[in-house]
């Protein structure tokens, strides 16, 4: 027996508000997830693209501010390198008329476009990282609680289903913010700090807000979809398979259907391939005119998907208790 064993003693302290119980669930999830060496590696690797894009912004700003007179076509070549393909016509329209104008005018027209292009491209590359991070992290989150019957330990406490789900969502969102949103925000700060011209803030102040909005549009449905898969099975591997299958089959559908003409097939394609769906939504949120006319439908689809996923999780998390 330890010498400090005082036996049982009653506890008479003041209890905290129950509103913070979800943070306990989130804390458990984060602690558990961080034990995965692979997740730590991936979380480290996904910081590489922002560094590369940061260098690009730095070069761009240096070129413009060192009085090297650019031309509209030269600028367009640079933007074309970065812009998503569907944005190319917009860039052409914006930059084509810039030949011969002075540097300030060119800068005011080109800078927001280029910064948005960089942010969008970074968002796309981070989406790939997000798929991997979620694939490593989420499938076990609810399925393992069911398998190890931790449900009984959680729900024999005054914890509600909503608090449990919020805790699980917060775990996932914490990692996604760390690997997707934070790099973008730091890239913006990095770009501003390295830009010799302070007017960049006036021209791009809305980008962090747009980044947050675009991240939320991607992270919320992604988190709920992955947690839904985890809640549907006690076998983590099935949930992992389901998660990666959604992305891989979406890509396959994209490859097959892209050659089929027609409005309906175009819409189906842009809804079924999540990568394209999130990319289109980001383009809309960054206010870059694009050729995709389905932004409202896609946004409605994402909201509906999130609500359905939430309903499924809400139903499934208490199912083992009812049995």
């Amino acid at each position, binding site marked *: 027996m*330890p010498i400090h064993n005082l*036996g*049982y003693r009653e506890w008479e302290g003041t*209890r905290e508000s*129950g509103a913070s*119980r979800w943070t306990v669930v989130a804390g458990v999830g984060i602690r558990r997830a961080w034990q995965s060496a692979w997740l730590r590696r991936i979380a480290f690797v996904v910081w590489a693209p922002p560094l590369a894009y940061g260098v690009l912004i730095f070069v761009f700003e240096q070129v413009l501010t060192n009085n090297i007179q650019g031309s509209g076509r030269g600028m367009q070549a640079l933007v074309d390198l970065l812009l998503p393909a569907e944005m190319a016509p917009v860039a052409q329209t914006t930059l084509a008329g810039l030949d011969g104008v002075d540097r300030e005018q060119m800068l005011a027209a080109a800078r927001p476009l280029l910064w948005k292009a960089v942010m969008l491209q970074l968002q796309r590359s981070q989406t790939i990282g997000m798929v991997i991070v979620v694939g490593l992290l989420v499938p076990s989150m609810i399925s393992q*609680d069911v398998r190890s019957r931790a449900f009984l*330990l959680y729900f024999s406490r*005054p914890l509600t289903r909503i608090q449990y789900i919020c805790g699980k969502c917060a775990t996932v969102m914490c990692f996604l913010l760390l690997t997707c949103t934070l790099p973008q925000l730091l890239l913006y700060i990095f770009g501003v700090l390295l830009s010799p011209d302070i007017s960049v803030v006036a021209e791009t102040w809305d980008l962090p807000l747009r980044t947050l909005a675009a991240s939320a549009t991607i992270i919320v449905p992604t988190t709920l979809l992955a947690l839904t898969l985890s809640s549907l099975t006690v076998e983590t591997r099935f949930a992992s398979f389901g998660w990666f299958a959604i992305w891989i089959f979406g890509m396959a559908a994209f490859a097959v259907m892209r050659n089929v003409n027609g409005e309906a097939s175009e819409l189906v394609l842009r809804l079924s391939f999540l990568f394209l769906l999130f990319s289109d939504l980001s383009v809309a949120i960054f206010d870059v005119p694009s050729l995709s006319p389905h932004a409202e439908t896609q946004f409605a689809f994402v909201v509906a998907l999130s609500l359905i996923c939430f309903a499924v999780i809400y139903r499934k998390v208490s199912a083992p208790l009812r049995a």
Partner: protein
Amino acid sequence: MTSLIELRNLTKDYGTFRALAGVSLDIDSGVTGLLGPNGAGKSTLIKVLLGLVKVTSGEGRVLGHNVATQSAAIRAKVGYMPEDDCYMHGLSGIESVQVAARLSCLPRTEALRRGHEIMDFCGIEQERYRKVETYSTGMRQKLRFAMSIVHDPELLILDEPTSGLDPEEREAMLNRISILSHNFGKSVILCTHILPDVKVVCDAVTILAAGRVRLSAPLKELLKSPNPAVNVELTGDGQKLLAALQSCGLSAELRRDGILQISGEAADVTKQLWKSVDGCDVAVQNMSPSQSSLEEVFLKSVRDNHDADS
């Protein structure tokens, strides 16, 4: 005095299967054994008490809170130790207990301090820093017990707390339950199949079978023999004494284990016994009123009601 648990005509159906059929029950403070054969509805009753499943009809109150509408308040005051081998994957023992305390709203630092204190009480030493997955069955059992009492609950519901424990640990666990009940006034519902455990720690027993309460009474009353008798342990040959007692008109028999069983109330029997012992060349080593065994009570209760049902 209001009962800790009051259930009135409680019914729970799972589809067409009736798990609880009109359960009416009052449980007072102290240690109450909840007994019943497999499938009797014990687990369902526990889930109802915790508000984890909704009842089909009837009503119930636990610690003054309605089970249908105030389940969160009930779970804040109740400690539950599940029978299942459940654990929070990836956490160490002390982290698990800390999480349990935090979920019951203890502040972070206090939860850790209290966790260590409770693990000391439960006899979990350096193993508390190991991952729970590496624990033996007995260790997990102790851990679940620690998690159930870390928030200092008023009522403890323990589902098979001694299963999987070696004899020494089993005794220690029963001792802990007794300490909590007798020294700290905690009420305990002990759900078990191990009847000797019930005999050691329980003040009252409730027997459940086929979703109905078959019997609910203080343990002392249950163990009273329906035909009062006195068991006498002797040294020497008891035949002479037996004959002497029978000649006095007492009904007595010498059992194979050498114990003399004399029918009648203890007060009447004792007087005659001491008179008869003289001159029979025997010494009385021990004398106690005859009791029914808990096994007999349990089996009789379950079988009688089964016959009545069929």
